[in-house]
């Protein structure tokens, strides 16, 4: 009975309509910048704008920084929890739930109050400090996804055996992490990395409240002041997000699937 039930097809069709129409409309709108002509002018305007290049570059750099910091925090923690300190697991999992509970606007409000000029750690006093604050905010936002990705990756490789083998060969913990564990979970790490990228590129609230020249802020500004370029930006943003997610799906096919699952 592979033909499928009628109601299912109807629901699917309606769903497709609802989800595809805005995408089609956005593309169509972005091509209409000139009357009576289909041109890519909106796209060229956007891509050639120096502000676009600056803010896009800035966001990419912050994204990479957030990924690196996030990995430095998450990989050792996930490794040690899995290997030696399973009793800390509930604490860690609670922590990874926090960013999902605390809305980003609350987070940045707390940062501004806590790390302004009158605090022990006056991060907002300098551009560099504010950039650091922004990166850490994004690490916090991406933490749940990064942790889940790394944890899943660790689950599918036999951490105990690898560690024992490396220990026997005389490796210290740092070497184990860098040269044994990390290469084996690279697929999971990349998944987390792409998700972080997708989050950072489009993020608006935190960047605008910290007054940083990020891509999300630029998009909102263009949205208020130009008529057709925002649609072009939306399409570009969607392509990037889809690209990142697509990479994750692709990588999932290459994830190691060893027989020695530990739980």
């Amino acid at each position, binding site marked *: 009975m592979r033909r499928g039930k009628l109601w299912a097809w109807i629901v699917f069709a309606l*769903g497709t309509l609802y989800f595809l129409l805005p995408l089609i409309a956005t593309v169509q709108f972005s091509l209409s910048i000139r009357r009576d002509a289909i041109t890519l002018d909106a796209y060229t305007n956007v891509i050639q704008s120096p502000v676009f290049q600056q803010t896009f570059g800035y966001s990419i750099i912050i994204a990479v920084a957030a990924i690196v910091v996030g990995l430095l*925090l998450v990989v050792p923690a996930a490794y040690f929890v899995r290997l*030696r300190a399973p009793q800390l697991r509930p604490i860690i999992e609670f922590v990874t739930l926090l960013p999902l509970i605390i*809305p980003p606007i609350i987070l940045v409000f707390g940062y501004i109050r806590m790390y302004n000029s009158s605090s022990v750690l006056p991060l907002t006093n300098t551009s560099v400090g504010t950039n650091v604050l922004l990166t850490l905010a994004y690490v916090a936002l991406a933490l749940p996804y990064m942790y889940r990705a790394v944890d899943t990756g660790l689950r599918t490789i036999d951490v105990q055996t690898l560690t024992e083998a490396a220990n026997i060969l005389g490796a210290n913990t740092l070497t184990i992490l860098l040269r044994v564990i990390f290469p084996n979970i690279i697929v999971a790490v990349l998944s987390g990395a792409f998700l972080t990228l997708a989050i950072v590129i489009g993020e608006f609230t935190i960047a605008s409240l910290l007054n940083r020249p990020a891509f999300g802020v630029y998009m*909102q500004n263009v949205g208020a002041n130009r008529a057709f370029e925002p649609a072009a930006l939306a399409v570009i943003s969607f392509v990037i997000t889809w690209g990142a997610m697509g990479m994750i799906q692709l990588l999932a096919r290459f994830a190691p699937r060893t027989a020695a699952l530990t*739980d």
Partner: protein
Amino acid sequence: MSNNTDSVVTNIAAPASAGVALSRGPFAAFRGMRWGDYLGVAPFLLFAVLFLIVPTLYLVLGAFIGRDGAFTLQNIVDLGTPQILNSFWISLRVSAASALLGCIFGLLIALAIIRGKLPSAIRSTVMTFSGVASNFAGIPLAFAFLSTLGRLGLVTAFLKLYFGFDIYRAGFNLLSFWGLTLTYCYFQIPLMILIIAPAIDGLRKEWNEAAATLGASPFQFWRYIGMPVLWPNLLGTLSLLFANAFGAIATAYALTGSSLNIVPILLYAQIRGDVLNNPGLGAALALGMIVITAVANVVYLVIRTRAERWLK
């Protein structure tokens, strides 16, 4: 989970450290852990404390501090102004409406692709698309909907041209409660699909067959077996969707500038320019938001853990 394997490993890998003979007593759980293990987890926990827990607590406590620095409940009371109450009310309504619609339509679509006997390629495509769409919130989504249902949007123009039906003359406006709800559904529905799919998968074929053997119609199956099993999951996800919508600001901001009177935008304006002229009040607003989203999320988590019992 895997406590057995782990404790075996602990014993093998750390024979020397057991020299700290704390095999009994309150620290028995930490037996065998070297300080090196803490070092691995420490940065993570330090980060969590400094950049997740403390800022939020700082805000929460700040809500109780008045202008003079003393403890006060005045800020909470001040939340009672018409403008602020109105914004909470609108936020609650938009979040509830988009959560409800997201729940219903997400469930329908998930049921369609999983149990509707559609080609299997459809399921994987929809799941992948849902993964992307649930992250498509924010500013680009606002632009997309403006291009679709704005005054000059594709759908608006299409309806006007081919059906002579001007939705704006009929009273629809994208920049309104229903417009915003419709826009929010774009990421609520995929989120629902992603979360409810495993639960629907858990409705085992054997239950269908058992029910059929007993003479139940499909409707009776759903009424007595399917829905009751799914029900906790539905409620829990409803709660999650609600929290998701309540905290969202970027989409609404991009649609209306700062004109839509919802709580996150009010808070945004307050942080930006202290428009309420009262830092304690801003913190109180934040507290209100945290309480609502925290409650909704806790409801989701509690229900989820209980519901998972059925789907083991």
